[in-house]
């Protein structure tokens, strides 16, 4: 899909959502207002992540050559690629969808789809949230779950890559 086509589909998607809100506003204005308030509250929280993503995109444009990306995250990246995906996934913050623009750029520059899938899976492992998770589920459970998820993230990345190779 070309960039302009992706952008156009995104505008249609946004247009559909705005239309749904307008219809909802006509049918049930209080629910529409509550939904808008919820949306604004999410927006307030994600703006700092917007800035981080834009900064990372700019850094990547300025300093990272496509050849470097291919070396570390491309087809022959080996264990290095998986380790980078795991660490980057764990330290990244904010909602998952905010990372799609950056991942889209990486994908276009030859990053393996398996590595992108592993990155996305590891976004589930958040060190900052571990204390809260321990509070609810106990330290043994959280330690085991975290380790299992890191290993499964690589298995999932590998499987996604293999399935994408299958011609339908």
């Amino acid at each position: 899909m070309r960039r302009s086509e992706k952008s156009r589909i995104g505008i249609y998607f946004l247009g559909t959502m705005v239309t749904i809100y307008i219809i909802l506003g006509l049918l049930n204005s209080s629910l529409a207002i509550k939904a808008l308030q919820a949306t604004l509250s999410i927006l307030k929280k994600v703006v700092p992540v917007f800035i981080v993503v834009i900064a990372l995109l700019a850094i990547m444009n300025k300093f990272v050559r496509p050849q470097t990306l291919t070396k570390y995250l491309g087809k022959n990246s080996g264990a290095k690629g998986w380790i980078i995906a795991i660490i980057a996934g764990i330290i990244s913050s904010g909602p998952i969808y905010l990372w799609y623009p950056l991942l889209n750029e990486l994908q276009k520059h030859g990053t393996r789809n398996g590595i992108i899938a592993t990155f996305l899976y590891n976004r589930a492992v958040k060190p900052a949230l571990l204390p809260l998770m321990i509070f609810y589920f106990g330290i043994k459970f959280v330690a085991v779950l975290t380790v299992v998820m890191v290993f499964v993230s690589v298995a999932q990345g590998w499987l996604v890559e293999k399935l994408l190779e299958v011609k339908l």
Partner: protein
Amino acid sequence: MEALIKALKTFGNTLPTILGVILLVGLIKVALPSSIFTHMFSFNPFIDSLIGSALGSVLAGNPVTSYILGGEMLKQGVSLIAVTSFIVAWVTVGIIQLPAEAILLGKKFAIIRNATAFLFSILVAIITVFLVNAI
């Protein structure tokens, strides 16, 4: 400066998709309060792990919400396997974000990634609970 302008352009191109997802998440949050889902479990661990993964896949929001809901589910007698599959699917499967993921990363990639993440959420739950009981 050129790098920043290019970054802003790239981000600007994806902004409508991201805003669309945020509007969808806001609507789902208000229209379907998460608490109503805690009463959907059958108390059969195997069926419940499927229900847990399915609920986790369609609900969205901060992972903290899934911990709170998961904690409540445990108190109500829902099995640990079901609760684990619920909190894992909550963060790894994104039905609400699927349109954005398909637009930006490819339809086939988005479908395969979410479908495998759904299956892995059940597997992760089974392995985790088995290991927790064994250690």
